[in-house]
């Protein structure tokens, strides 16, 4: 079943905090297209773990500082 992603992110805020980095610049440094960065920022795409690490590495922060997941959604049932 297709569900919207529960993952949220702070990429937009992090970009502005890093000298107003453009989406194109972030895309180049991560090695993806600008459209993919836009889709991630808008919550239309959940990146792979590897891509998530690459994004966090660009901003020199931890994964949790870039991506967040609601506590209640991750509880095992």
């Amino acid at each position: 079943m297709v569900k919207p992603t529960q993952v949220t992110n702070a990429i937009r805020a992090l970009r502005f905090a890093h000298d107003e980095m453009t989406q194109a610049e972030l895309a180049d440094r991560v090695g993806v297209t600008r459209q993919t960065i836009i889709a991630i920022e808008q919550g239309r795409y959940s990146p792979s773990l590897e891509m998530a690490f690459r994004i966090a590495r660009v901003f020199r922060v931890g994964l949790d500082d870039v991506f967040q997941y609601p506590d209640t959604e991750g509880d095992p049932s």
Partner: protein
Amino acid sequence: MAFEEKRAWVMILVSVGAYTLYVATVLGRAGDGPLADISYAGTLLWTIGGAIVAAIVAHIAMAIAGGHGADRADERDREINQVSERIGQSLVVIGALAALVMAIAELRHFWIANAVYLAFVLSSVLSSVAKIMAYRKGGFQTW
């Protein structure tokens, strides 16, 4: 708009355009006799070949017009492509099953060939629509 999304639009235009040309050409030959007697094979093969060449030429033209790296694809593009191809292939299976039933029923080759061609066209269109929806709306990931 993502390069692959543009390619999907081109595929819809090329597939529908080629099939429309084929149907118009074949029906234009229709006389008083049964449809299955119409000469169709050459037109069918030419329109399929023409559609493939047109799609390749359009891809190259878009890549050149977009500049260096315009046709670069990343993992999201590959995921969307896999999902949309899988959706489109469902119609190829349906077309193959239809052709099988028609062959068992000993229908004329005309009907079997046209059923398979229609399945190819619908598969291409469905796959391209699924791709466009995935790029625009997201939601193609199953978690």
